[in-house]
């Protein structure tokens, strides 16, 4: 019933778009017939109903349902209280998952932001600024899957035998320096850090872009005044740049932090979560769809939710504070 040919697929796509356009037209037509200021409420209702319905059915209901499900067993039939949560915090497999997640969340935002900030300062006002920035920025357009494959190739290992040449860049450099090639993605916990490198590689461009804009927005007179006071370069960074871009820094750190908590694609593509590299978001997928343990999967999803909330709350508070100023 579902089309398998390319033409059939595009035809279905156009049908879907047409149906959608028809629905929106009806809404606009009805809203257009409602005249006068008294009808404002009805216009608002017509404009909001599609979004509100989709959010209720597609986000709110499933979210509540998952929280509910996290108190049930693997088939989702027997109520087992908080046992799934106990498993997450006691079973040795799950503890490795938690440990890895901590590594990801602690390391990635700070390293990616530092590199982004350093690079933004280094290339600021240079002749090749636009080009230099594009180089760092480009990984943002690449999918996590693509990025993981790019880096898996860097880490690629060939057995250390005479006549066998290394084809991965990292091992080749190691061999040239006189070392022995390593099967990098097997060794825990080093492999987790090698996967974190992929995320840093992607996120540094985001940090750089936002921070570079913040640096350029620092008023010239502040800088001029500091310079006249004879502030050194490091002092300038410490007392002028850093305080001025603080709100942007917080936003960058928290945004990357939230993204890192949800990281799934990199682990799934690079190792599939094997060799002790799994993280909460990947474990959620493995438990829900591979191990068919719905209850534990739901509990992991809820844990993810609980971990994201404080970061978002902090982020919003910081934004409020910086706007009030």
């Amino acid at each position, binding site marked *: 019933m579902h089309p398998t040919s390319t033409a059939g697929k595009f035809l279905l796509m156009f049908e879907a778009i047409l149906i959608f356009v028809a629905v929106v037209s009806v809404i606009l037509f009805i809203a257009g017939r409602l005249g006068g200021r008294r009808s404002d409420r009805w216009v608002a209702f017509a404009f909001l109903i599609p979004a509100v319905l989709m959010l209720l059915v597609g986000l709110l209901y499933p979210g509540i349902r998952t929280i509910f499900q996290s108190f049930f067993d693997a088939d989702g039939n027997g109520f087992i209280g908080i046992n799934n949560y106990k498993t997450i915090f006691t079973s040795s497999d799950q503890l490795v998952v938690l440990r890895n997640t901590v590594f990801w969340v602690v390391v990635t935002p700070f390293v990616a932001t530092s590199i982004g900030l350093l690079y933004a300062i280094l290339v600021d006002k240079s002749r090749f600024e636009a080009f230099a920035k594009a180089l760092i920025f480009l990984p943002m357009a690449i999918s996590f899957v693509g990025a993981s494959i790019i880096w898996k190739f860097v880490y690629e290992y060939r057995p250390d035998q005479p006549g066998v040449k290394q084809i991965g860049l990292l091992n080749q450099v190691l061999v040239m320096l006189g070392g022995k090639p390593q099967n990098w993605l097997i060794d825990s916990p080093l492999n987790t850090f090698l996967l974190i490198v992929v995320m840093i590689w992607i996120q540094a461009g985001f940090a750089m*872009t936002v921070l570079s804009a913040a640096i350029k927005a620092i008023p010239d007179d502040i800088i001029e005044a500091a310079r006249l006071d004879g502030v050194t370069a*490091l002092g300038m960074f410490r007392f002028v740049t850093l305080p001025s871009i603080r709100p942007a820094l917080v936003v960058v750190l928290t945004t990357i932090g939230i993204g890192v908590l949800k990281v799934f694609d990199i682990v799934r593509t690079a190792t599939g979560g094997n060799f002790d590299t799994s993280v909460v978001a990947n474990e959620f997928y493995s438990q829900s769809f591979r191990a068919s343990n719905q209850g534990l999967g739901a509990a992991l999803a809820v844990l993810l939710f609980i971990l994201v909330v404080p970061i978002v709350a902090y982020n919003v508070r910081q934004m409020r504070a910086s706007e009030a100023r």
Partner: protein
Amino acid sequence: MSTAATPVTTTPPVAAAPVKVSAIAKKGLSSRWASLAAVIIAVLWTLPTFGLAISSFRPERAIKTTGWWTFFSNPQVTLDNYRSVLSTEGANSLGQTFVNSFVIVIPSVIIPITIALLAAYAFAWIDFKGRNLLFVAVFALQIVPIQVTLIPLLSLYVDAGLSGTFWTIWISHSIFALPLAIFLLHNFMKEIPPALIEAARVDGAGHVQIFFRVLMPLLTPALAAFGIFQFLWVWNDLLVALTFAGGTPQVAPITVGLANLSGTRGTAWHLLSAGAFVSILIPIIVFLSLQRYFVRGLLAGGLKG
């Protein structure tokens, strides 16, 4: 949103600002070391992609026995890798998934943006009871990780007889995009001077006319910005596609195809390299041609949302 208007990627005229923090910082570091550091970072950031790009044009045997850097002393070029990856038949081909990616991404960008536009207009320019409360609720939904919604959504789709079709992916991406889309477009709409809207109302224009004649032309950059975001997010997505189309090759996008290839044939570098580049090409083109809007959206979303 004043910062959002700064086109950060274009080099400003050198004479405009005589002294800048970074300029002084650079002097302190001595500009030679600074340049060296910048070059090292730039090389580290480019080399991995470059290596895979070179590999995708080398014959299978060469890729598997020698490093890509030997290409420069012994150049061998072939398009065979791309041919086997792009063909629509064969177990290793990604041709079908490439088509699916297009079929998935177009409605998944159009639908949420349109629905979010309507909602954002109501939040920004129509006064109704409970407006602020509802807006905060929508804003708050941004923090719901999509993982929390996947399994119940999947059972809803199964009940509706939609599982394993493009509809599930279109609908899911549209739903997940809404909170951020409504929030961003609302912010953009709020920036339009109220006097413009008032003038139109005095002239007797209804909401629908204001929406099309006054707001839409002014919102083009915002739409482009969010459109690119959503395009990249959908094109590069793995989780949603794997959940709703993981078992259906007729529907799965290229990210799923690549991830499967990486899992089952992890050393087939001639296929992986070419496949990765096919998947990367489209977002890079979109990204480079619309980079200006992307940066604008990033700053608006990053600093405000």
